[in-house]
């Protein structure tokens, strides 16, 4: 479609904003829109953004005023924005700054400044807050320990807190970057996070697509601050990647980096821990014993990798760490549990984001093509499938043996690519691995063995890895440009994003994601969800049909 000169944005009455891709001002408008609205989906023609209180407060925290937002909507709006939306934006945005958290000079006490008398009265009568707030003139006093709790409680009732209380500096750490060219957008991310170093900066979230170098950005922040750092990661593989990247991109040595995981509990000036070990406890009533890690060192920075996966108990401890610098890294602010507001209030507002399409245009991430290949069930499985119960049906469809032939052909077709074959059922994966003589990684594969395989893959000594869903999160396979999904339900938007993220790392060539589906089976329902999700992310999606069952 040729570009037209219509204004690109259409503001809907429910606060949704549609952005017409085929307009001359689209790119310009998208840049502005990202400052105060969250991208929900970005299919081929029309992208959907959503204005929410959090997106507006994120905008407010970065200094955007409601007048500026109105000016953007007026400038790029195809039709006048509905009155109710204008009103809501104004009312919501003006809440920012009405409540400010400030230092008092007394290290253990903070002051919650509330100058509006009606709001002051509202907070004074709040049951949940009255226990932790002490009334003062034009505000309330609170213990430093309750800094996070107060912020979380206030956001529950629709009031964001502008946190201007000072942060603790933390213990120093000599650290310099080596062999690392920080890309321009990564540098912008670092600057946005650090701000001017004054109260109200030094905590927040950076949103960047998979494969765009979030780890590098985290390391660049560490190098800029030169403070002892605690890095929390979703799993051990991810933890090891961080360790390897830190060792290769900075002048830190192995003895300065500790691992706090199921295998070992070593605390060093830079300590890497997994979410799993932090939330481990003997039983449901016991305390989280490893939370002591947060207090056992004078951390100057805490990094939350994949912050959208942060477990609920870690939020609780994070509430107590509000005086520490906190950096959240993620590809998406959307949480399946809907706890986005926790990330906002406890880790910090969004300080920087960049759409993946922009990075793709700039060549920083690969262009990805998604293919769904529908394969008939073999004749001998059609009646068993038809007569099976729902659960069994799914399994028969997932383990369709003809998928292995197709996968084998794809491996042949991509003979010059690094390939990941992902599946849900071990027996299927074993057979696949055996057929193409490729290593198999499952949950049972020891970490050490996994790393050996990953390293060989990285060095292109092996071209194909067959892997169970353990590979879904936070492993770094820099040269994989093809992923073939043999089986596996559409789990969540995050899972799909992560799975695709495996092949989006910067490369010289395009990436391919194949999803093999048994035709006319329940697998198609899951595939529809995947198709919808991926097309909504803007990926090109093609469906190929094998066989003639009908």
């Amino acid at each position, binding site marked *: 479609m040729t570009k037209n000169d*219509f204004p690109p944005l*259409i*503001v*809907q009455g429910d606060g949704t904003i549609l952005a*017409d891709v085929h307009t001359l001002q689209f790119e310009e408008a998208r840049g502005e829109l990202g400052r105060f609205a969250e991208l929900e989906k970005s299919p*081929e*023609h029309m992208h959907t953004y959503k204005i929410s209180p959090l997106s507006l407060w994120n905008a407010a925290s970065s200094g955007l005023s409601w007048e500026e937002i109105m000016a953007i909507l007026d400038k790029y709006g195809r039709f006048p924005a509905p009155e109710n939306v204008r009103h809501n934006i104004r009312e919501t945005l003006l809440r920012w700054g009405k409540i400010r958290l400030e230092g008092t000079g007394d290290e253990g006490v903070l002051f919650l400044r509330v100058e509006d008398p009606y709001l002051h009265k509202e907070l004074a009568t709040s049951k949940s807050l009255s226990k932790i707030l002490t009334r003062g003139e034009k505000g309330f006093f609170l213990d430093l320990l309750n800094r996070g709790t107060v912020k979380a409680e206030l956001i529950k009732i629709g009031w964001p807190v502008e946190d201007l209380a000072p942060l603790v500096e933390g213990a120093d750490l000599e650290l310099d970057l080596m062999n690392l060219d920080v890309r321009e957008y990564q540098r912008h991310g670092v600057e946005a996070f650090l701000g001017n170093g004054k109260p109200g900066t030094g905590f927040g979230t950076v949103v960047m697509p998979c494969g765009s170098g979030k780890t590098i950005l985290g390391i660049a922040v560490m190098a800029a601050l030169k403070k002892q750092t605690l890095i929390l990661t979703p799993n051990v593989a991810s933890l090891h990647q961080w360790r390897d990247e830190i060792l290769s991109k900075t002048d830190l040595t192995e003895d300065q980096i500790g691992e706090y995981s199921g295998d070992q509990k070593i605390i060093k000036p830079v300590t890497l821990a997994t979410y799993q070990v932090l939330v481990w406890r003997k039983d449901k009533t016991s305390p989280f014993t490893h939370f002591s890690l947060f207090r056992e060192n004078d951390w100057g920075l805490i990094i939350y990798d994949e912050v959208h996966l942060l477990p609920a108990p870690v939020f609780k401890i994070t509430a107590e760490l509000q005086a520490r610098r906190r950096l959240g890294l993620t590809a998406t602010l959307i949480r399946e549990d809907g706890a986005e507001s926790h990330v906002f209030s406890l880790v910090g507002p969004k300080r920087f984001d960049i759409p993946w399409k922009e990075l793709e245009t700039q060549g920083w991430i690969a262009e990805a093509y998604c293919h769904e290949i529908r394969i008939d069930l073999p004749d001998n499985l059609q009646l068993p499938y038809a007569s099976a119960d729902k659960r069994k049906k799914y399994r028969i469809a997932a383990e369709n043996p003809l998928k292995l032939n197709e996968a084998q052909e794809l491996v042949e077709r991509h003979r010059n690519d690094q390939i990941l074959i992902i599946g849900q059922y071990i027996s299927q994966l074993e057979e696949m691995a055996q057929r193409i003589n490729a290593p198999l990684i499952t949950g049972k594969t020891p970490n050490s063995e996994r790393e050996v395989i990953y390293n060989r893959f990285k060095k292109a000594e092996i071209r194909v890895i067959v892997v169970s869903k353990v590979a879904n999160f936070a492993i770094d396979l820099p040269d994989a440009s093809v992923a073939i999904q043999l089986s596996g339900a559409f789990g969540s938007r995050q899972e799909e994003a992560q799975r695709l993220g495996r092949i989006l790392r910067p490369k010289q060539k395009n990436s391919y994601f194949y999803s093999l589906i048994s035709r006319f089976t329940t697998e198609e329902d899951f595939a529809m969800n995947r198709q919808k999700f991926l*097309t909504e992310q803007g990926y090109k999606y093609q469906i190929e049909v094998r066989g003639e069952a*009908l």
Partner: protein
Amino acid sequence: MNDWEETLFAMEEKGFMNLIKNYLLTLNTPYNKQSMIERLSAWLGKEDNRAALFSRITEEEKDILSLLYYLDQVPGDKLPLEWDEQIRENLCERLLIYLANDRYLITPPLREQLLQKGHISFLRFLDLREPAKPHRLLFAPDDRLIMGLLSFFSEEKPFFLNDGTPRRKIIEDLQEILPYPEHREDSFFCEMTELLLRADLLERKEKNLILCSSEKLESFEALTPESRIHHLALLNAPASSRGKLRYLLGKLPDLIPADRVISDRGWLRLLYLAEPRPSRQEIHHWQELPSRLALLGLCTHEEGETGFPPAAERATEGGHPVLIQPNGDIDLPPETPFSATLVLSTSLEKGGTYYRFQLTRDSFESGLRRGRTGARLKGDLEKLTGHSLPPNFLTNLDEWEKQLNSLRRVRGILLRVSGYPRRIMDQSPGLAEHILERPGDEWYLMNEDTQNQWKSLLRDLGLNPFEEIGASQESPSFIPEEEEPLSLPRTLEAAVSPGEAETSMDKEQLQEALRELNLPEEQYREFYHRIERGVLLFPEQMEPAVLRQEVCKAGGLDFNGKLRIVSSSLEARYPLLEMKLPDKGGIRTVRAVPLELHNSREESLLLFRNEEGEEEQIAVRKILEVIRFHGSLLS
């Protein structure tokens, strides 16, 4: 001889002579009615005379004249008039209007002059006025909202509770997905659903609602967007007047200034413009119409006032394409026309400035059940969007259709044909398009929906199927398009040209001239009343010879005289009495309209209406003096 002249010709002698004497002053003998009428017509043709006649027209009379001008086809007894019969009579004696065959009409020689001079205007006819308070145009449901509502019911849904009211949950669901501005009343979706039910676009199955047949939707689609809304607005209107009413609705927004509103009275007059002899049902429907039009965003209606905001306020910038996305989202910009395919094969996700429909397997299946095949859907969507559809979208359609068709109950009519008819069946190109499948030798599955057509074709070929199956379907009827069924001013400006100032003696000057004549009291009073009634326009008309020589005064002890005057006045069409009555030891003079005379053995009592409009009663014997005047030259 025109209608007016014929009316004068047929007029009873006394009234006719009064008119002639009053305006022409002299009666040529022998009397020749024809020549007198010609003289009267010539008199009316004179500029000075017209100016004098027009100078006495009151604002109320201008309204009446405007009404009569535009409603010249309406019978007198049907006119929506709130004016006194006496005013009509007065207008008649002033030669401005006449009564012919129960119809009041404007005197032909004056008709266009009255319009040109601004005494008649469409603005007056509509009784336009400034609104009592600012009017606010309600959000206008467009084709997309109708599509959204209909697609919501593409699967049968429980809608009514036992008491016949809509389920709250369903209404809330509709409010969630369809635009529902705050100023809309809660009943909006109930009323819209009711309209769609009446339009046969939704059907009621006990407590459930379901979408109508695809044929009805297609017929609805074939109308223009404006016609569709008008069709919904005029559902209750009698079929005979729908075309005219629709035309009227199409014209009004361009005709009525944005800062004016039509009163309920003006609104009713519009009906008569479209339908000179409306039935009671038509009047009722018309009076209810403004609120329905307001529901459909076609006008405003508040406190008995109806306004038509200019089209520009409602128009949106057009030219935006429908966008069909790989994830199945179909984004509809404003002005997207109604599409039966969208209703049948997609579901509404959310309405707003843009509407977002979605194509899913379920929605496709629903459409396929009603005959929307993948190929048809593809063709319709491509036509709608103007560009090719995403490849994954097309594969989905193809795959869904294959799967759904792999085991299906086929709707159709099975014909078994053998022998020579079979050769005819096979070779007739006209029949081929009605054959759905040939399931076996000698078997033909025929399209049930087009059975009337193929049966007719068969009959033309000399073949009659042995057994008739199914019933023919009624085709839906929508409002027909009519070419200019009404004559309306093209713009209001053209119809309200300002009147010129009339130059003639005014009432006070005439009265002064009358006083100077020093006429006997009875004559003075008669002329005085003629000046008051506007039939005496020039001093020359104050000629005592033109007055009727009748005894019309009695008093004192002349009881019989008083009784005769009172009785005769009651027989006149427009009687007027002036009475001197005893009043608390004094005397008061009352100008009265006699109403009734009760004669009993003891007393004759006169019931009359005084100048204040109050009714009073007095014994005739107590009247000190009574004088009868002519209420009209015609009486």
